[in-house]
């Protein structure tokens, strides 16, 4: 009797678990539907206004026209080719700038000497309006890939520099004391405390850097280029092909959102980032 009761309890628990899982899924779906309500409504109004010719078809081509233009660009192969070029530039520039930013930020964070030597210079260069040097970069490095990649690299350097530096300096002093009583060497303190504790800040830096990377790409490609997504938009603008401009804007939005989500997803897989919230029972004074 008692065994069957236990079994019954187990089955009930399992059923409850599945019910919970299903209701969670349903809630997510509902959230998604609520979230899409406004954009869908806006698109519908936009389409309706365009069909009624209340808004100019040249300045505001309707969503369906933009969609057609997108399909045409995909089929002709132009879009794939240009997106490929743009992606290459973005990631080459991001890799270079963010990598150097991270390395420099960690160095300056870990060593007071390098902070005194480097930080004020970096902070000053950071204040140069990012876009103002585009023209010079083209003069110095030509209209080829180098100038574009370097412009993106310059932009992505600073968020990672700042946030990794800040992350290191914000490592909880109380945890430092713990590593001291546990007899950690200086090396172990860095690898087992400073770096994991800095990770959430580094992820934030990466997200900001990526946003700047896309922004810099657009500027670089619009200034001087014969390929890339932003060039495609510039080219279309010259021919008053506004639907293609809209396609470009939409694609940039999607690409930026996609890369950001990938970073967040990767960060979510690594417990150091999602578990970085205040410690239970606390480090409060």
């Amino acid at each position, binding site marked *: 009797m008692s065994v069957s009761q236990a079994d019954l309890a187990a089955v009930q628990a399992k059923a409850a678990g599945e019910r919970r899982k299903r209701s969670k899924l349903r809630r997510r779906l509902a959230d998604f539907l609520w979230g899409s309500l406004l954009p869908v409504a806006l698109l519908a109004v936009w389409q309706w206004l365009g069909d009624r010719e209340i808004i100019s078809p040249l300045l505001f081509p309707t969503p369906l026209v933009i969609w057609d233009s997108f399909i045409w660009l995909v089929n002709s192969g132009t879009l794939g080719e240009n997106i490929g070029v743009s992606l290459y530039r973005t990631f080459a520039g991001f890799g270079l700038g963010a990598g150097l930013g991270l390395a420099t930020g960690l160095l300056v964070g870990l060593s007071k000497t390098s902070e005194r030597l480097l930080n004020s210079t970096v902070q000053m260069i950071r204040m140069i309006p990012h876009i103002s040097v585009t023209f010079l970069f083209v003069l110095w490095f030509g209209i080829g890939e180098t100038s574009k990649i370097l412009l993106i690299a310059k932009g992505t350097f600073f968020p990672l520099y700042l946030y990794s530096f800040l992350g290191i300096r914000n490592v909880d002093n109380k945890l430092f004391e713990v590593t001291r*009583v546990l007899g*950690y060497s200086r090396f172990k303190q860095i690898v087992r405390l400073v770096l994991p504790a800095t990770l959430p800040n580094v992820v934030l830096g990466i997200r900001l850097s990526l946003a700047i990377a896309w922004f810099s790409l657009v500027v670089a490609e619009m200034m001087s280029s014969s390929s890339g997504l932003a060039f495609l938009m510039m080219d279309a603008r010259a021919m008053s092909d506004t639907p293609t401009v809209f396609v470009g804007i939409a694609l940039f939005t999607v690409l930026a959102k996609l890369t950001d989500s990938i970073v967040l997803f990767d960060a979510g897989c690594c*417990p150091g980032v999602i578990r970085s919230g205040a*410690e239970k029972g606390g480090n*409060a004074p």
Partner: protein
Amino acid sequence: MRVIVATLLKIRELHKSFETDSKTVQALHNIELDVREGELITVIGPSGCGKSTLLRIVAGLDTSYRGEVRLDDRPIAGPGIDKGFVFQEPRLFPWLTVEKNIAADLSLRNPDIRLKVDELIDLVRLKGFEKAYPKELSGGMAQRVAIARALLRQPRILLLDEPFGALDAFTRAHMQEVLLDVWRRNGTTMIFVTHDIDEAVYLGNRIIILKPRPGEIRAQIPVDLPYPRKKASASFQDFRYKVLSEFERIDELSWGEAGAGI
């Protein structure tokens, strides 16, 4: 019956003062203390009496003092694994699971460490929470992880700085049981700082009473009650009164001093 042997910790003429911008504050004055191996000492005193400072000096976290502090007859050079420390808060690494927090820089892949960590998890009653993260634990559980972490290194002496101060009364009573259990089984020498008289009497072989400004040892009361102690028993209450009356004398003294100053 526990056989108490050699002196493990020896403190002689310990003075400690803090420099502030305007003046020098004396935190500890002429502390003399011997701790024998296997003892469980409780240190009690009002806030500002320097009890945490004393503990930090023994831990090697604070090395600017005058006087002599020797562990195993060697002067204390700095912090290290021979001196376990449990802080007021758990201070766990938030990105590590319970078992990894206990192991910290030691590898769980080492079967020896694995075995010891499992034993400790059992000892501090955290079975089933090995893979939990600190934010999923209650305050009492997190503090037990911190105790296990300190014990894994098999310290010569375990220093506890008001470790149960932030816990509610029920959790605190439970934690006291856990700690006594650990002490009985491992025989680790402990210095336990608290501001709770019941806790001091309940846990200690000997109670050190500190008086504030400057921190000085007012009295040492050996507690020869057998464990487990009954908080409601008459003999327990006797010790409680002894400690309380020492505090009242401290109060009178400081009132006297204040009065003289006026």
